[in-house]
């Protein structure tokens, strides 16, 4: 038993945080324009909305935040596809010729795409709110909506960057993102609606929300009845964390055994 555990531990890829941090810095440096663009893109509509469209309509504000998160998710997908571009062009070999391991390379891309992206985007909407209407953050609708879309953005970026490193082709990654964000959700709904129409199967509204929530987790917070509650937020967080855990386990095995550049 102990021997198997030791063997398993040896199997896990070694990750040195300083090297990951160094590579993350490099990625961020190369793409700093994209990050600043995200900050600009996220904050500009909100800044305009908060200062010009007054009195603030919470529903409109939430709609804007959700819409912006959708746009940012697409941008995050394109950003993640840069990793696939690197692998595709062979540039990755250059980085791996340094002491950087495959795992470190992999996780630094994931980190710079997900955490940095989400952090910058969150700043983009939190700062205007803090400046213009700090009280609104205290409401469950607004704070919940912010957490829900942040979780969704994390969810999307983790999936997209994982897909980017795995698919190794920019075209395929863009195809995957389009499929994930647009084609699959819509086609799932069409299939379910048809199924309900031609058979006796009843699909509840909650089932629809959960199915759509697999693609857009914030839907669980916004549309699962009773909507916009802490319970819904917790369920969304559980979904996101479960997918993270599954991806993490899969990625460690993938990096160790199958990742080729």
């Amino acid at each position: 038993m102990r021997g198997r555990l030791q063997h398993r531990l040896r199997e896990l890829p070694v990750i040195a945080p300083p090297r990951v941090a160094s590579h993350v810095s490099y990625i961020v440096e190369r793409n700093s324009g994209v990050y600043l663009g995200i900050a600009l893109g996220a904050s500009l509509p909100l800044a305009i909305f908060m200062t010009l469209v007054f009195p603030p309509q919470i529903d409109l504000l939430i709609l804007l935040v959700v819409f912006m998160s959708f746009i940012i998710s697409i941008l995050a997908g394109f950003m993640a596809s840069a990793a696939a571009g690197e692998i595709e062009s062979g540039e990755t070999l250059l980085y791996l010729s340094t002491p950087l391991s495959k795992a470190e390379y992999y996780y630094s891309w994931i980190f710079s795409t997900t955490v940095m992206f989400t952090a910058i985007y969150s700043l983009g909407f939190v700062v205007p709110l803090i400046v213009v209407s700090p009280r609104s953050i205290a409401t469950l609708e607004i704070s919940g909506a912010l957490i829900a879309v942040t979780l969704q953005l994390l969810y999307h970026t983790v999936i997209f960057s994982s897909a980017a490193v795995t698919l190794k082709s920019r075209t395929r990654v863009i195809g995957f993102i389009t499929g994930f964000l647009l084609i699959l959700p819509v086609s799932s709904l069409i299939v379910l609606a048809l199924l309900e129409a031609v058979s006796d199967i009843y699909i509840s509204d909650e089932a629809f929300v959960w199915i759509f929530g697999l693609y857009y987790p914030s839907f669980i917070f916004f549309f699962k009845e009773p909507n916009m509650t802490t319970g819904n937020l917790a369920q969304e967080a559980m979904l996101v964390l479960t997918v993270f855990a599954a991806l993490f386990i899969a990625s460690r095995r993938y990096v160790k055994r199958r990742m080729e550049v």
Partner: protein
Amino acid sequence: MLLKVLGLSLLLIALILGVIMVAVDLKQAEPEIDFFYGPTSVGYDGRYVYFMLGFRTPFYLESPQVRASMYSIALRAEYPGGAYVTGARISPLELSECTLYLVYDFLKANTLEQRYPISSMMGHFFENPLFSSRDINIALSEVSRLAEERVSRPARGGSCNLTIGLDSIPRLVFFVARAPADKVSVVDNQGRVYTGEEARKILEESVGFPYLFLPVYNASPAPSPAPAGPTPTPVPVTVTFTRPTATIVVSSSGYRLTSTTNGIIGEALSLRIVSTIEPGLYEYWRLSSIVLAGLAILVYDSTRNPGAYEGRRYAWLRWIASILGTLRGSRGQRGRR
């Protein structure tokens, strides 16, 4: 590099926000008040005579140009000329005490208006005698429930002052001012002046409109008939909003208040609300703290990784860092001395 992007993002966001805020403030339109209620309600509970007035704030009417949290309002209500009650004039009205209620919260007021379109009801009430007082009472009891007592202080010189530090939009503002009944004299249409018990008796008979908004209203007295003889000429009601850059004066030629039950119950003789709207600095303070946070992050990072801040693009940052370094150095020198 992470800190660099973080700091630059903060500065960028603050810059965008700052530009929009300044642009909005420079482009301030002069707000106007189109709804003004009152002094509509005159009540009497045996000890005090009550007056109520209310208006929609310009923040609501010209809201795109104004962010509520940037402003504070100082309101001053004066009753120099007294007021008419059912044809009798209460004069001079010495406001030795004012209780001011404020329905200020946008969301509350919004909810209220969704349930009871009070502004339209009030508007209809003034113009349409078919509008029942019961409906008005329902609406005003809602106001009463939602209203918050903000100021209750003795007033000098017949005025009430209310300063509101705003962090949310005041959409509907209602005031209730009260004056001790024993200091009120009543003048009837023939010019006779009543004081003391006589005045009190007239008040009890004539002040009849049962506004539930009034905090301690004394049951509903019998409605009084419409007054005989000439109706007093209304003196213009003036609402003055003064700002450092603009003065807005909205005048109305007074109101003839009519209800189905009470006939003419009162007319505003003279009421003046002076509201000073001054740009608050709350938002700019918060914005500058964001800018400082961004700068602090960048300065800190530039001392750790000077290589990332080379070139003309970051000359300003190096300059700030050098000033801060100089300050730190001078402190150190003082310490050594």
